[in-house]
């Protein structure tokens, strides 16, 4: 059986192999009320590089909506703390300053050094140096942006993460993975049949997703390093809506082998398949809490599509949503205190967040056809699919609703986003 899938994978690859870059373009459509004014001085000797590190750092931070970039032009450009004339930067309105330098080593590698300076206190907040290959320029810039973001906001930065999404171009579907800033898009799977619901394993090494290549929904797990893939389970009916347990050992999935869509648990290698929900109505879209103790899911057991919570070990289900007749696609926030979902109001579908302790709901978007919300691993942004002028695009909104971004590709519809995890080795 395994062999058969490998063969199909090969056929899919051969039939649809393509160039591997179709960058997502990101547009910021809103910002936080109190942006941190930050000046980034181009690093010393940076203009000899194929791409500017500080330009990438600046665009990362600006994209978060939490920073206002102060133009360094006209001021003396320091690269070392001793050279900083704080009064000049105060006059420009900058509260913080980023300086640094790049130098080439005899072995072809580069030394990148940067410092984050507090202009008001006239002191250093952070300083790091990296020895990198020229191919690591972008990832190093993202790491620098992560350090600055964390120092100045108190939250972990997610500029080094990746996103997965599906592009539909005519009748062709591609599952792609790109950096969080839209660069470096790679096609993971191309098919003439629909692909949906990608979800990252907690360690970022695998994607589970649904493919229609066998003319019905089937869940596959694909290793992103080797490219190897296999159907998670092989049972009668269809399989969809995969969700990883936080330890990466299990998945919850929806199967139709007993008729209607019901939830099952299965080990990540496909073994030990067990029914988890048992009734005669729709249960789908499971999502594990970050501590692994709870599962959110969508069910019509009360007569309309609503979100429920149940212990992962089984037990009584508790209905969580009550506004309106359609609340779907729940996803826990990374701190487990709230969940994002899609709420239908007057025929329009918006991204909303509900606090688990208070049950308070905040609707975050005003676009009418929003789908598939997915939290950034720091919980600060939610990426989702929407439509602009009949085209599928991805958008992101801050979890307080104030910052908005739009991500689109040059051609085709983009949909089904899934924000990847923070990787510890970065």
């Amino acid at each position, binding site marked *: 059986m395994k*062999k*058969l899938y490998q*063969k199909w994978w090969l056929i899919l690859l051969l039939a649809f192999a393509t160039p591997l870059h179709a960058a997502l373009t990101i547009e910021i459509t809103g910002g936080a009320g109190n942006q941190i004014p930050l000046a980034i001085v181009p690093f010393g000797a940076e203009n000899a590089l194929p791409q500017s590190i500080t330009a990438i750092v600046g665009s990362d931070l600006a994209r978060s909506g939490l920073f206002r970039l102060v133009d360094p032009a006209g001021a003396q450009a320091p690269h070392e703390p001793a050279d900083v004339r704080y009064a000049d930067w105060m006059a420009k309105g900058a509260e913080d300053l980023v300086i640094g330098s790049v130098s080439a080593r005899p072995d072809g590698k580069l030394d990148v050094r940067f410092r984050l300076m507090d202009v008001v206190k006239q002191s250093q907040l952070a300083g790091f140096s990296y020895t990198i290959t020229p191919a690591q320029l972008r990832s190093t810039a993202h790491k620098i942006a992560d350090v600055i973001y964390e120092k100045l906001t108190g939250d972990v930065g997610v500029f080094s993460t990746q996103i997965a999404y599906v592009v539909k171009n005519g009748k062709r579907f591609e599952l792609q993975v790109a950096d969080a800033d839209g660069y470096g898009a790679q096609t993971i799977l191309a098919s003439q049949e*629909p692909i*949906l*619901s990608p979800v990252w394993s907690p360690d970022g090494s695998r994607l589970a997703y*649904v493919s*229609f290549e066998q*003319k*019905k*929904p089937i869940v596959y797990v694909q290793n992103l390093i080797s490219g190897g893939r296999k159907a998670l389970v092989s049972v009668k*009916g*269809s399989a*969809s*809506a995969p969700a990883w347990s936080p330890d990466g050992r299990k998945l919850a999935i*929806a199967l*139709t082998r007993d*008729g*209607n*869509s019901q939830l099952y648990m299965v080990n990540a290698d496909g073994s030990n398949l067990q029914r988890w929900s048992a009734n005669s*109505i*729709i*249960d*789908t*879209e499971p999502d594990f809490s970050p501590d692994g103790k709870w599962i959110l899911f*969508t069910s*019509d057991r009360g007569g*309309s*599509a609503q979100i429920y919570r149940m212990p992962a070990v089984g037990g009584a289900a508790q209905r969580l949503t009550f506004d309106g*007749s*359609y609340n*779907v*696609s729940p996803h826990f926030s990374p701190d487990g205190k709230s969940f994002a979902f*899609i709420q*239908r109001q007057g025929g329009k*579908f918006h991204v909303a967040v509900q606090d688990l302790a208070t049950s308070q709901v905040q609707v975050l978007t005003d676009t009418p*056809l929003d*789908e*598939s919300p997915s939290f950034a691993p720091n919980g600060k942004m939610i990426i989702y699919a929407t439509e602009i002028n*009949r085209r599928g695009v991805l958008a992101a909104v801050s979890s307080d609703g104030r910052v908005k971004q739009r991500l689109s590709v040059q051609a085709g519809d983009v949909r*089904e986003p899934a924000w990847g995890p923070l990787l510890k080795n970065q």
Partner: protein
Amino acid sequence: MNKLLLSAILLGLLSACASTGDKDQSGAAVEDKSMGQKSGADASGAQKSGVAANPLTDPNNILSKRSVYFDLDSFSVKDEYKPMIEAHAQYLKQNSKAKAFLQGNCDERGSREYNIALGQKRAESLRKMMSVMGVSDSQMETVSFGEEKPKSEGHDEAAWAQNRRADVVYQGE
């Protein structure tokens, strides 16, 4: 494995030819829901019947009606479709070798995953009715395409109404 693939491809080619011939003869186009591959055996059966209309494709026969349409969010089958479902149930009972795929679909709005589940429930609604009418479970198979295979590509209520649907598709069609 190669042999298996090759024969699958050959079978596909064979059935593609057969289906073209079929269309030319009867002139009654069967909607291609691309579920079951046409088998060679089935196609020759259709040719045997020649110009004499196949009850499944004869536009004057209720068996040529294959689609049940649903209201928004709903999976309950309206009364107007019961005679049609009854006819398909009778056909399956009289043709024990026939097999029907019951395919559920949804309009494009809302969650793709919930729509897979809702389409499944629409298909299951048909299966349960036909089961009560005495059709053997082995002659029916349900599948949901969710919102992924829209019949109408439009983005208005007329298109959505077309896509909130369950189809009866016979094996070999």
